């Protein structure tokens, strides 16, 4: 589905990511984790062709994403950035309807099918009742759902999310993560996220990719990746990792900073 190899990425001349690569299959739910400045958001931006790369390649269904017409990419892949702005008086439905843009020809008007898909995206994100509210009058969680609905209206196969739960309280965070899980299960939507909360990353993804200083550190199932040793060498944190009996996945409790590593 998405295949990144030998990625080299930088700002001006400073190389941030080098020799990075992975292969993601249809229907996977992947979290990119790593400390601040490790280059995980940068990788996500390059995967979504928001940023140019210095070397390497990103293949989407076998085709180079940086060479494909951007509109064609937009029919298969959507990215939700960390910061989003909306004009103050756009309604939820208006915002979501922009998701149909890549599927319409230049200057073509919204068709009945487009409106159906917008309705469907609103239903998936449980926003039907808020469809006519202004985005700016919504709570943070509702606003994030509206943006996810816009991405869904693009009918992508892959959804990239840059820290989708930052700024939200715990219940809204879980609401967003549950929503993504449901979409992943029911629509076979592939999701690649950058997450800060490691326990959430473990809980809601079936694969973790760890970046350290712009290089691939580890790539595997959550239970293999989330270990005391990884936390020590990547985050410099001493932690106790236990397997939670109810969900059968590891979780960690930080004990303190690891010194002398």
């Amino acid at each position: 589905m998405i295949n990144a190899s030998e990625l080299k990425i930088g700002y001006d001349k400073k190389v941030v990511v080098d020799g990075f690569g992975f292969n993601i299959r249809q229907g996977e739910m992947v979290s990119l984790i790593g400390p601040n400045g490790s280059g995980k958001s940068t990788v996500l931006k390059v995967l979504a062709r928001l940023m140019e790369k210095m070397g390497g390649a990103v293949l989407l269904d076998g085709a180079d994403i940086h060479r494909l017409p951007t509109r064609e990419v937009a029919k298969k892949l959507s990215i939700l950035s960390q910061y989003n702005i909306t004009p103050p008086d756009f309604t939820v439905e208006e915002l979501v309807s922009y998701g149909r843009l890549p599927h319409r020809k230049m200057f073509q008007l919204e068709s009945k099918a487009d409106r159906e898909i917008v309705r469907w995206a609103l239903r998936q994100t449980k926003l039907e009742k808020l469809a006519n509210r202004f985005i700016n009058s919504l709570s943070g969680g509702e606003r994030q759902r509206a943006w996810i609905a816009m991405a869904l209206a693009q009918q992508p196969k892959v959804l990239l999310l840059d820290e989708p739960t930052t700024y939200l309280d715990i219940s809204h965070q879980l609401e967003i993560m549950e929503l993504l899980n449901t979409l992943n299960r029911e629509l076979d939507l592939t999701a690649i996220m950058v997450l800060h909360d490691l326990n959430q990353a473990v809980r809601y993804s079936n694969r973790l990719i760890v970046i350290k200083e712009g290089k691939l550190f580890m790539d595997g199932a959550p239970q293999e990746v989330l270990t005391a040793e990884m936390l020590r060498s990547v985050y410099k944190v001493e932690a106790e990792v236990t397997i939670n009996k109810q969900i059968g996945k590891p979780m960690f409790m930080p004990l303190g900073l690891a010194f002398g590593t």
Partner: protein
Amino acid sequence: MLTGKSRATCREVNTRLIKRLMVLVAALTLLVTAGFLSLRFGSVRYATADIIGSFLGAEGSTAKVIIMDIRLPRTLIAIMVGANLAMSGALLQAVMRNPLADPGLTGVSAGGGLSAVTIMLVFPEMTRYVPLAAFGGGIVAAFMVYTLAWKRGIDPIRIILAGVAVNAILGGGISLLSILYSDRIQGVLMWLNGSMSAKSRFHVSILAPYSFIGLIAALLCINTANVLQLGDDAAKSLGVRVNLARILLSMVAAFLAGISVAMVGLIGFIGLVVPHISRLLVGTDYRFMLPVSAVIGGILLTLADTGARTLFSPVELPVGILMAIIGGPFFLYLLRKGGAYRV
């Protein structure tokens, strides 16, 4: 079967649409009224009957000559220029995502100004080429601004800074020439503050086709302008080529401003303020905001021009001065009153 709640929200959306359409209709009505007033008032006042008479016939009467050959062309030019400048400003505010963007920022006004002033002061025998030179100078300056701003893509903040720099340089040139040739400054002052005096049917026939092209191009930009409001990343994710979109929208804006500057000289204020007035009335959606901007621009310039030639008659003021005096307070009123949109 609609539930009570969703029926209520349907009604809500419809009221919004109806309100927006009503604003458009009201603005168009006001435009016709403004145009009508501008035909009535001048150094001679005409009755409504004279105006209707001139449109329907009354061959050879003085009234017909003045109304049809002098006032009507002037009114039409004012409407077109007002609409062009307002649309130009509205598009640039989307391109820069900055409420302070106006047509002057692209360098069009300063570039057009410097070439026009050079001809009027240094080569006065070539004065009839002023419109052509002003248009050319404006486009060259806009090209300079965008070339300077380009660095692996076009960043709004760099366009603004490059625009400020180019404006300062060209503005310096205008000031220098004005001082060196201060004996000939009179005609130049009028041009630098914008004037629609002595415009004939000939001028209308030149401006109309370009304005029409500009209008169509601007209307085709509506969708892109809306998407740019969602931010660069979201626009890219939706498959918009953001750099290309910025350049195309800027080109349309520069063209609209360029033809206006070439025809009537420099008129500030409209391009900056009319889009805001329009936003306060119909919101930020360019499908409504852009057409309403065009109409309000036309109204404002027509009224300002009518005032400019009658208030201190026989002295005629540059229209830019009146514009600021009428438009400024109205803008402040809307700003205080507020709406869904806040500046």
